[in-house]
C-alpha cells in the first residue's frame, strides 16, 4: 500500500493513494459565504467545480498556510447513497509518499464519534502516522451541504 503523507498542525497523517485522482498545486479557492470553517470553498477542476475541504482546519483547527508544499488532493469520495464524487482536500507538506506494509498497520483502538475518519496508525521513520479513511471524512451535516441537488436528481 502506497501512502501519501501530509501534515495538519504538528501531526503527520497518511492517505492511501488509491483514493487519489490527482495532486494539484494549491489553488485559489473561491470562498463560500457562511460556510463552516473546514470548507475552504470551491475550485474549478477539469471543466467543473468541486468542493474543497481544508484538512488543516478539519483536523487541527487552523486553516492551511499558503505554502508551495500546500497542495490540493482530488480524491474519489463515495457519498453514502452510493455515488462517487470528486472532492478537493487542502493538505500541508503533501510532498512525499511512503510504501507501507499493510501488516504493520495498527487498527484504530480508540473510537471517537466525531472523528470516524481515523482508520488506524502506523510508524514510519520514528514518527507515528495516523491513517485517514476518505469516505468517513465528512460529518453527515456536510453531505447535505456539499452534495445536495444531486440527491434529488
Amino acid at each position, binding site marked *: 500500500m502506497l501512502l501519501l503523507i501530509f501534515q495538519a498542525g504538528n501531526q503527520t497523517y497518511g492517505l492511501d493513494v488509491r483514493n487519489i485522482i490527482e495532486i494539484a498545486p494549491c489553488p485559489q479557492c473561491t470562498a463560500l459565504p457562511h460556510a463552516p470553517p473546514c470548507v475552504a470553498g470551491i475550485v474549478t477542476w477539469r471543466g467543473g467545480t468541486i468542493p474543497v475541504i481544508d484538512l488543516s482546519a478539519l483536523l487541527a483547527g487552523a486553516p492551511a498556510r499558503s505554502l*508551495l508544499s500546500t497542495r490540493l488532493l482530488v480524491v474519489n469520495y463515495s457519498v453514502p447513497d452510493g455515488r462517487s464524487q470528486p472532492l478537493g482536500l487542502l493538505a500541508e507538506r503533501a510532498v512525499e509518499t511512503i*510504501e507501507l506494509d499493510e501488516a504493520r498497520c495498527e487498527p484504530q483502538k480508540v473510537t471517537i464519534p466525531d472523528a470516524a475518519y481515523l482508520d488506524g496508525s502506523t510508524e514510519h521513520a520514528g514518527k507515528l502516522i495516523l491513517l485517514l479513511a476518505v469516505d468517513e471524512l465528512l460529518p453527515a451535516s456536510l453531505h447535505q451541504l456539499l452534495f445536495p441537488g444531486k440527491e434529488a436528481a
Partner: protein
Amino acid sequence: MKRINEWRARLKIAQKLALSGLFFALPIAVLLTYVTRQYDRGIRNCEREVAGTRTLELCPTLLHDLRALEIREGLTTRNSIAGPNDLAELRTRIDKTMRALQGAEGGGTQEFVGRLSGLWREIQEQGQALPAQEKTALYHQMVDTASQLVSAILDDSSLILDSELRTYYVMNLSGPLLLQAQAAVAESEKVALKANAEQRLLDRRDLSQLQNQSEALAGSIIPRMRYALETAVRADKQGANPSFQQNVPPLFERYAERVSDLSASIRAAEADAGAASARDRIAATAAAAEDAGVSLGSTAVSELRTLLAGRIAGDKRSRAVAWLMSLFCVALAAAVMTAVTLNVTRPINFVAAMTADIAAGRVKEAFHRQQRGDFRRFLPRGDSARTRDEICHLINSVCVMTESLDTLLTKIVQASNQVSASATQMAAAVRQVEAAVSEQAASTEQVSATSKEIDATAREFARTMAAITSRAEGAAGEARGGVTNLEGIRSALDELIHASATMTQTFNSIGERTGNIDKIILAITKVANRTNLLSLNAAIEAEKEEEKAGGFSVVALEMRRLADQTAVAALDIEAQIRNMQRAVRDGISSVESYAGQTRAKSTAVAELSSGLEHVIEHTTQLAPEFEAVNKGMQLQSVGASQIAEAMEQLRLAAGQTRDSLAEFRQVAADLQSAVRDMQAEVGRFAIAS
C-alpha cells in the same frame, strides 16, 4: 522399435483401427477353422460309417447262405434232404452277394473281399472234385474270412468307437452280437440236420452240444442284444427317429421269440431223445430263427444308415450356421468400426483444420469457422454440454478456446496500444522534467556564484570596518590628545563619512543582489515543486497501474524515487529561502540603521566646532556601533556561506535527479520497445474484431 514407431506414425487412425480389427478377426478365423475341421472330420467319419454299413448289410445274408449251402452240400454228398433247386438258388444268391460286396467295398476291407472271392471261386471250380472234408474246410475258411471282414469293417469305419450312444448300440446289436447268435443258431440247425441226414436219432453228444448253444443264446447273447436295443431306443428318444422306433424292436422281439422256440424245442428233445419229430422240429425252429435274424440284421443296418445320414445332415447344418454366424459377426464388427472411425476422424479433422488456422495466425478464419457452426453436425442433438463423448468435449473446448483467444488478442492489442501511448507520454514528460532540472542546475550555479560574491564583499566590508574602527579610535585619541590637531580630526571624519557612503552603497548592492537571489530561488523552488507534483502524480498512477497490470513495478519504483528526491529538495529550498531571506533582511536593517547612525554622526561631526567634548564622546561611542555592524556583517558572511552550501547540495540533488531521469527514460524506452515487440507478436494473429 524405432522403425515400428515410424511406421505407426505414418498410419491414419482409420488404418490403425482396421489393423486392430484384423487382430480381433484372427482368433475368430482360427476358431472357425478348428470348428469347421471338427465338423468335417465328423462328417467324413459318418460317411465312412455309411460305406461300412453297406458292406455290413450284406454280411448276415452271406454268412447265412454260406452256412446253409455248406450244410446242404455236405448232406447231398451222402443222403440229400433238400432239392437241387434249393442249392442252385443259394449259389446264385451267394454270387449276387459277392458281386455286391466287390461293388460296395473300398479301403482296407478289400483284402478280405478278395480272399472271399478267391475261396468262393475255388469252391465253385473244384467243388465236385474235392473230398468232402477239404470242401468243408474251405467253407469254414470262408465263414471265418466273412467274420474277419465284419470286424475289419467295424474297426476301419470307426463304428466300434462311435461317439453317439444309439448308433453304437445299434451297430453292436446288428454286428458282433447278431453274428454270435446266428452262429449259435446255425450250429444247432447243423446238428439237427446232420442227424436227420444220417437217418439217426439225436445222441447224447448232440444233445449236450445243443444244450450248450441254447444256454449261450438264452443266458448271454439274447440278454446282451436286448440290453443293446433298449439302450439304443432310450438314447434315440432324444433324436426321436420314428422309423427306427417302429421297425427294429418288433423284429427283435420276433427273433427272440424264434430263439426261445428253438430253446423250447431243444428242451423237448432232451426230454424225449428218441423222437424224430423233436429232431426235425429243432431244425425247423432254427431255420425260422435264422431267417428272423437275417431280416433283423438287414433292417437294423439300414436303420443305422438312416441315423448316420441324419447325423451328417445335422453336422452340415451346424457347420453352415457356424460359418454364417462368424461372417455376420465380422461384418457387423466392420460396420461398427467404420461408423466409429468416421465419428472420430471427421470431427478431429475439423478441429485440426481449426487449430492449424490458429497456429498459422489465422484466428479470424478459425473464429468465423466456429461462428458458422460447422461443428454442430458432429455434436449430438440436444444439450451438448451433458454428453460424455470426448470428441464433443474437445470441439466445445476448442470453440471456447478460439473465442477466448480472439477476445484475449483483442484485449492485448487494445492494452498494448494504451501502454504504448502511456510510455510515449511518459517519455515526453521525462524529457520536460529533464529540461527543467538542467535549467535548475544552471540557476543553482548562478546563485552559488552570487552568494560567494556576497561572502567576499562582506569580508571586504569587515576589513573596511576594522580600518574604520582603528581610525575612529585614532581620532578619539587625537581628540583626547588636544584640540591643536582639529584639522587632522576633520580630515579623519571626512574619510569616515566617505567610508560610510561607500558602505551604504555596498549594502544597497547587496540588497539588490539578495533580491535577485530571492527571485532565482523562487524559480528553482517552483521547478522543484512542479517536479515533485509531477512525480507524485506519476507514482500514484504507477501504483494504480500496478494494481491492474502488475508489469509496471519498475516504473513505479523509479517514480517513487524521483518523488522522494524532489520532495527533499523542495522542502530544503523552502527552508533555505526562509533562512536567507531572514539573513538578508537582518543585514539590510543593520546597514540601514548604521547608515542612519552614520548620517546622524556626520551631521554631528559637521557640528564638531560646537564642542570637541561632544566629538570625543561621539567618536568613542562610535566604536561599539562599528563592532555591532561588524558582527552583523560576519553573520551575513556565515549566511552567504550557508546559502552556498545549500546550493551545492541542491546542485548535487539536481544531478541525482538528472541521473534517475536518465534511468527512467531508459526504462520508458525499454517499455516502449517491449510493447512494440509484443504488438509485432500479436500482429501475427489476424483477429475477427
